[in-house]
């Protein structure tokens, strides 16, 4: 600006300051969220990947709001009751509309349910709704669900996986068109999605809840982590998903914002209890004594992880909190191995999918600990699709997999330990019976007791080498107030502008 006179400079300075202030006021109501992958689609019914649902759940609302403890609060529903243990009656909030003006009523819920379970849609959530036999409209605002058997996780599952969509508009659109431009009754409506680029959402005036803190939310995807971190450091983004341990210090030191823990991931080492050395319970326990999980947690996760005792996350209701994680005791591990007939240990293979965070380091640490007690481990890193093939084909002796740290114990306990769901590496009739009881008992206290029992049983049987729960981390800019959720979903209406 050296070619300008002094006065002009002052004037220009004042103008740009005014422009800047105006821009700041306008921008402060736009939240930019950066994810590591682009949504595949935005129809909450047709998608299951986190990056897709993180956006879709802001657009398409459900009957219930999921709570962090596994319970639910009213969403589009005003109230609900169980007249008997196979019937759920839901009463809707009156006077609500979808983004396109269609009424939110019992008919919309029935339509949504039928659409979700239809073979034509092939929704990934169809299996999650498979315990529900029917949805019947009672009156304009009342709907009744019948389940095939008493099914406790129904409210929890519906709070995510029964998205309510407007019947007329949805039926008029091809399913892939709806997947690109969905309509719901959520706090935000879709303004635009430039595929490969930004998804822009704007606040919906007719939303039943509090007005969201931001008028607009932009979801952007940057697959490369260093570029993602750079966008945060450059002040371009408010919330950034996918911050690995390696980048956490950079974010903290930058002074640009803070870290918040989102969903926990529960990695575990599955042991083949049906074939090979791990058929012996003592060998499985030995493995649990041999590994120093605290050290791994400190070294690899900056100590942010929570050690697991049994299969149920200590944050989930039903976990027996009196169980203590297996202590690191190599001598005891050796003694157990000798008792089981392996005084000199044995050789085995540890398979793991390479797409898990820091999985290579974890596998190496586990292998090194096992080596100390005589178990010689060959590491077998596998691409995730190959890993899945091998897993299903019962090819593994030891394998690392994970589940999200879900607040509803049935979600992973039934899926992973009930032989009706999976019997690749573990099968136990007593376990099946307890898990069946757990999902068919409606009273929460009673359920907690049942899951406590299975937690203790599997702690002793040790079909897994129990590890830890590792939080995923989001970076949050100074001018944004946002706390990560345990279920890992990014409900933008909980984010508020903050004074830095």
């Amino acid at each position, binding site marked *: 600006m050296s070619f300008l006179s002094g006065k002009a400079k002052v004037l220009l300075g004042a103008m740009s300051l005014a422009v800047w202030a105006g821009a700041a006021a306008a921008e402060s109501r736009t939240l930019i969220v950066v994810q590591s*992958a*682009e949504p*595949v*689609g935005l129809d909450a019914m*047709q*998608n*299951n990947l986190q990056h897709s649902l993180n956006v879709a759940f802001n657009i398409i609302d459900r009957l219930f709001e999921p709570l962090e403890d596994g319970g639910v609060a009213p969403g589009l529903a005003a109230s609900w009751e169980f007249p008997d243990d196979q019937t759920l009656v839901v009463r809707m909030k009156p006077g609500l509309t979808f983004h396109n003006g269609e009424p939110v009523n019992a008919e919309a819920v029935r339509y949504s349910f039928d659409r979700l379970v239809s*073979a034509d849609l*092939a929704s*990934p*959530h*169809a*299996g*999650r709704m*498979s315990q529900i036999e029917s949805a019947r409209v009672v009156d304009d605002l009342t709907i009744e669900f019948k389940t095939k058997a008493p099914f406790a996780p129904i409210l929890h599952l519906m709070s995510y996986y029964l998205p309510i969509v407007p019947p007329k508009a949805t039926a008029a659109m091809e*399913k*892939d068109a709806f*997947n690109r431009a969905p309509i719901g009754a959520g706090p935000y409506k879709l303004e635009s999605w*430039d*595929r*490969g*680029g*930004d998804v822009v959402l704007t606040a919906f005036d007719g939303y039943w809840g509090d007005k969201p803190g931001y008028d607009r939310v932009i979801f*952007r*995807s*940057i*697959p*490369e982590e*260093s*570029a993602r971190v*750079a*966008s945060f*450091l*450059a*002040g*371009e983004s408010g919330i950034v998903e996918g911050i690995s341990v390696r980048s956490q210090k950079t974010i903290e030191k930058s002074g640009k914002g803070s870290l918040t823990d989102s969903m926990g991931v529960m990695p575990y080492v599955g042991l083949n209890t049906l074939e090979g050395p791990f058929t012996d319970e003592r060998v499985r326990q030995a493995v649990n004594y041999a590994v120093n999980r605290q050290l791994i947690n400190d070294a690899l996760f900056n100590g942010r992880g929570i050690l697991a005792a049994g299969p149920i996350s200590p944050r989930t209701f039903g976990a027996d909190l009196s169980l203590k994680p297996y202590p690191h005791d190599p001598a005891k591990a050796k003694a157990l191995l000798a008792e089981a007939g392996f005084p000199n240990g044995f050789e085995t293979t540890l398979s793991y999918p390479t*797409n898990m965070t820091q999985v290579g380091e974890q596998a190496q640490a586990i292998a090194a600990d096992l080596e100390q007690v005589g178990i010689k481990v060959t590491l077998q890193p596998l*691409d*995730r*699709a*190959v*890993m*899945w*093939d091998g*897993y*299903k084909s019962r090819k593994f002796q030891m394998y690392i997999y994970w*589940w999200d740290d879900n607040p509803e114990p049935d*979600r*992973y306990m*039934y*899926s992973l330990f009930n032989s009706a*769901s999976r019997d690749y590496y573990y099968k136990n009739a007593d376990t099946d019976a307890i898990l069946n009881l757990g999902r068919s008992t409606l009273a929460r206290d009673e359920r907690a007791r049942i899951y406590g029992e299975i937690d203790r049983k599997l702690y002793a049987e040790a079909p897994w080498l129990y590890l830890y729960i590792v939080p995923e981390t989001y970076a949050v800019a100074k001018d944004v107030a946002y706390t990560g959720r345990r279920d890992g979903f990014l409900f933008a209406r909980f984010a508020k502008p903050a004074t830095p």
Partner: protein
Amino acid sequence: MSRYPLRRLLHAVLIVAGISVISFFFLHLTGDPVGLILPQDATREQIETLRRDLRLDEPILAQYLHFVTSALQGDMGRSIYTREPVLGLILERLPATLELALTALALSLVIAIPMGVIAALRRGGWLDTISMTLALFGLSMPHFWLGIMLIMLFSVQLNWLPTSGRGTWEQLIMPSVALGASLVALFARLTRSAMLEVLGQDYVRTARAKGLSETMVVGKHALRNALIPLVTVAAMEFGFLLGGAVIIETVFAWPGVGRLIVQSILDRDYPVVQAAVMMLAIVFVVVNLAVDLLYTWLDPNISLGRTDK
């Protein structure tokens, strides 16, 4: 001579067919996408149904034949995630990739030609040394690394340019520089050697002897002739640019075909990967074919494929 184009065309078709076989079988050897599409708590019934829908329960040869017969009728299949026609998904992304590749190409030519000319005119001088050293740097730096370094410098430290995305001209700068850097090296060296050759020719000496200004000599007589090989190589390099775009698009979140391929490979979205690979292969083969034919036409002295001379 007239048989030559025909034979090249046949080659091109064979190459494309070969690529379709290789990419199809390799892709399908790398695992079952069903476990990735469905949630971890999917029921067995869900898994079986999806496998049937995607024809994964059929023998791989039957799957390939189905793919080929549909593709020949112009149907490249649907994405197994979004269920949209694959061709639309790719065509939607193609403009972004072409924009990036063409800008990178243009940028590298604009920088490389003056560099090469100066280097040739000042052969052995410090300008020559500097520009050729710089060119070597451009050639040796991996795209990926250069991209990240540019972001760290111009976005994080200086705050001049946005880190990623597409839409404004500012967003185009860093990705095209990162993509074009290695080409600058190639083109500059090529220009330099071509210029050196041309400058030694008789007609250049004649032009100088006629008393033409040095600008006229270099600009009109020498450079024009030196550019012929450059144009050929530039056209051929275009195919490599499309390949390089795969990495650069990922670094800069550029919404092109490259990023679509990377994401689809991770998701095992076979139809998308297959179609995108085919599309890039076809562009590559067609450009090469065109250049070859153009070259024989431009310069009849080059009678490729004829040994009975």
